[in-house]
């Protein structure tokens, strides 16, 4: 017998279950098909501005910085201002995300934009969030041809652009959005939930920002 069959057989024996028990199979199929939501905290059940405000509050609690702009066209200038404010070189790494690509980057003089997978020397990466989660101040980005995952982790500074319309109250709403976007049971290769900058408390439980991932996460919220 293969290891697979041995393990499955042991599990069935321990559970006192027969392989072809139709009721058990139905229970599992139903759970997978229906994906019941469980307990969703009331905290995130907010609309419009209140939801965005909670998102900002929670993100800041997780040590992210947040800037709010009115429209997508304002993003390049906000990025440039962030770089200037922290004495960073005028260079960012960015994927080919169409929402980012549509922004007027040419309006910012002398900003060097690197495309494709992140390089270990990149100081600043820019991503566009697929969604935000107000409940925890989390942004969700995902991999794809236009979205190198390394941008989330390699640069010292990670700037994430979030459209306020993409901010959901809670994780369950974001899961529903992923299902609607990618199809039930299908996922992008990497789906990253990011809540503030990287940190470690491994030395004497002293919390330090900037472990292996970005030292700073800056969110630009549109709308």
């Amino acid at each position, binding site marked *: 017998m293969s290891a697979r069959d041995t393990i499955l057989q042991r*599990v069935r024996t321990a559970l006192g279950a027969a392989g072809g028990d139709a009721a058990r199979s139905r229970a599992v199929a139903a*759970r997978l098909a229906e994906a019941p939501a469980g307990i969703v*905290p009331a905290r995130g059940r907010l609309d419009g501005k209140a939801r965005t405000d909670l998102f900002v509050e929670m993100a800041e609690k997780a040590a992210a910085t947040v800037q709010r702009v009115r429209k997508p066209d304002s993003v390049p200038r906000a990025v440039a201002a962030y770089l200037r404010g922290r004495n960073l070189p005028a260079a960012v790494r960015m994927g080919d995300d169409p929402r980012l690509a549509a922004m007027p980057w040419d309006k910012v003089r002398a900003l060097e934009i690197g495309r494709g997978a992140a390089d270990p020397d990149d100081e600043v990466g820019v991503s566009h969030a697929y969604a935000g989660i107000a409940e925890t101040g989390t942004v969700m980005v995902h991999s794809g041809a236009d979205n190198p995952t390394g941008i989330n982790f390699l640069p010292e500074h990670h700037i994430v652009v979030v459209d306020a319309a993409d901010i959901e109250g809670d994780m369950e709403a974001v899961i529903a959005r992923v299902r609607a976007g990618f199809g039930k049971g299908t996922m992008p290769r990497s789906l990253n939930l990011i809540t503030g900058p990287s940190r470690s408390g491994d030395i*004497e439980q002293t919390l330090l920002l900037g472990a292996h991932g970005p030292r700073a996460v800056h969110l630009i919220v549109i709308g």
Partner: protein
Amino acid sequence: MDIRSPAFKQSARAALSDAQLQRALGNVRTGFIDKRRQAVDALPEFDALRDSAKAIKDHTLAHLDLYLEAYEAKATEAGGHVHWAETAEDARRIVLDICRAAGARTVTKGKSMITEEIDLNAFLEAEGIRPVETDLGEYIIQLRNEHPSHIIAPAVHLNKDQVESDFRRVHDHLPAARDLSEPAALLGEARRVLRSQYFAADVGITGANFLVAETGTSIIVTNEGNGDLTQLLPRVHVVVASIEKLVPTLEDASQILRVLARSATGQDMSVYTTFSTGPRRPGDPDGPEEYHVVLLDNGRSSMLGSEFQDMLRCIRCGACMNHCPVYHAVGGHAYGWVYPGPMGAVLTPSLIGVDKSGHLPNASTFCGRCEAVCPMRIPLPKMMRHWREREFERGLNPAAQRYGLGLWAFFARRPRLYRFATSLAVPALAAMARGRGAFRRLPLAGGWTRHRDLPAPESRTFMQQWRDRSAGGETAAARGPEGLA
């Protein structure tokens, strides 16, 4: 790794007299507990979420065979390779084969208790492959040739001076005059040193906090970002996960995530929660070209259907040890194997045998704080007691203990005899104290009097006095104890 659990008592004694360790353990007693409390208080639904999380795992475990099959089908559909391992040895062998096929000389590792359980690092090293731990705490203890003393804070037993001297010893290519006095400097140095390792590695190995049957996804939850770099940059990503990591759906993972970080570090959400499904897709600019999952049994299936099944709900948050007075006193290494604290006291006997780890479920005051904080509502004291029952059945506890217990039970089961014996012994003991009120030493009570006085009996037993007073027909007010001023 060597099993040192039989030497628990000696290890505990050494730990208690280790001033450096005691200083480090002070950090556990304060930080984790306060932060968890604040996070829990801020979420009114926390206890309802615990119930929900427990129900999810109970359901999953009751249908584990089917969820494993569903998970395998989806992971395979996404281009992943699923391997099944009955034992630690099998899992090591599978990982080695993958490394060999990839021509690997260096592998990076995200923090994972399961690879500690199968002692993967020592095995790979013996096979000529260099494993590099990338989590800061794991990196530090790898430099020291130690094992984690805590499941989420592996280097919690160390102070920064020790880390500094290790970094100076190992990073000898760096200027000797550099300032490493602050934790931030140590972290910065580790970050720089490890950056090159991520790119040099051929294989990245991580554990998984969850496997999602609905989508064939593995989830890791981290704060540093090292796990993500480990699974992103090498050409091959290997996930090692035990079979109880399954959850049915993304919603189920979400429920448990809400209690995980709050219980572990007091965060509402860890910094990185990453869902990985299969290898790099066509057109993707980065990501591993191969994605393997090793599903490990290693004793789990024999816990199913037993009185230890509830332990399989454990999500490795560490809250039980963060709140354990015994862990606070002796730290994690004294437990002598991979998993310390209350969860280790239950899990370790399941995995290595109670004959080798009998001290662990015994070294508990049953204060119940672990169960009170366990997000998965695992009845840890009850299961420790089950291990004591197994030990007792097999006659594994020390003879003196069994004899003493047997003698006590003989009397406790015979009220008249008990009454008679105590009515003789107690006044005698009270008289022996001669008004001092307590004993500094007493034959057969050395365990007690080594560290504290033993309060002496007041006078005669309550039952003696009560019988006399009742026989005298006195009123309650007159029924004061003897010796009342």
